[in-house]
């Protein structure tokens, strides 16, 4: 349908523009951070990525509940189309966090609260995608994935707190957290712009993936 394609292209262009703006903000507008130096600029990638991942998995939850209640395939397609970019953004979060950690803390990995929670999230939703990949019958696949997706989402706050407390047992929180505190205005603005850019990019990928899933369902029917 021409309108659908047009909308997709507009969204894509918007996303690209926002990304360019975000990069400009991250490298030009935002100041060189006093304590960490320029390596702190990775945060303009890391923080928006994790926020977008949370959005993605919230949508997986919505799609899962929607399918179980209505049995309309569109909801299941939403869940799938949100999960794939969600896992991607989670991976980006972990990779950027790890790369940030190397010059800052000296190691590629620390079991710090956010990195560990995000890693667990990654494991949950990779499992979700693996499950989807191993069931061919559409209704069975959708129902199974929905249950796992619902539990995964409900588990997110529980994972967050358990990891945070576990972490607090073993190390006092460091001042050099991923977010500087208090947050200076230019840093906040740059974070905001990049967060909008990531959200637009996610929306574009989500719509594209949903459309592909819809076409595949039509052709397979």
């Amino acid at each position, binding site marked *: 349908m021409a309108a659908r394609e047009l909308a997709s292209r507009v969204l894509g262009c918007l996303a690209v523009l926002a990304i360019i703006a975000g*990069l400009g903000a991250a490298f030009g507008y935002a100041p060189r951070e006093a304590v960490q130096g*320029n*390596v702190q600029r990775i945060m303009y990638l890391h923080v928006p990525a994790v926020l977008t991942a949370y959005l993605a998995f919230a949508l997986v939850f919505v799609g899962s509940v929607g399918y179980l209640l209505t049995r309309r395939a569109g909801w299941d397609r939403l869940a799938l189309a949100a999960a794939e970019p969600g896992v991607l953004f989670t991976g980006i979060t972990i990779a950027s966090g790890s*790369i*940030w950690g190397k*010059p800052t803390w000296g190691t590629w990995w620390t079991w710090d609260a956010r990195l560990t929670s995000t890693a667990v999230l990654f494991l949950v939703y990779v499992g979700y995608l693996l499950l989807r990949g*191993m069931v*061919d019958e559409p209704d*069975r696949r959708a129902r199974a994935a929905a249950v796992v997706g619902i539990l995964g989402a409900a588990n997110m706050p529980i994972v967050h707190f358990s990891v945070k407390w576990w972490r607090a047992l073993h190390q006092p929180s460091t001042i050099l957290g991923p977010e500087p505190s208090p947050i200076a205005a230019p840093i906040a603005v740059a974070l905001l712009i990049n967060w909008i850019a990531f959200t637009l990019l996610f929306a574009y*990928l989500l719509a594209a993936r949903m459309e592909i899933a819809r076409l595949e369902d039509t052709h397979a029917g």
Partner: protein
Amino acid sequence: MPDNWGYVFSAYGLAAAALLVYWRRLAGRAKILAGRGAPRRGRGQDR
């Protein structure tokens, strides 16, 4: 603290690469589906 631009660029570069690969995969699948047009038989059993 030294500036560690190498780390900054590798982080952004990795992210960009991952997103590009995913986007191209999607675009590829979209192209194949657009080319198909006619409906097909369903696929196989439970693996």
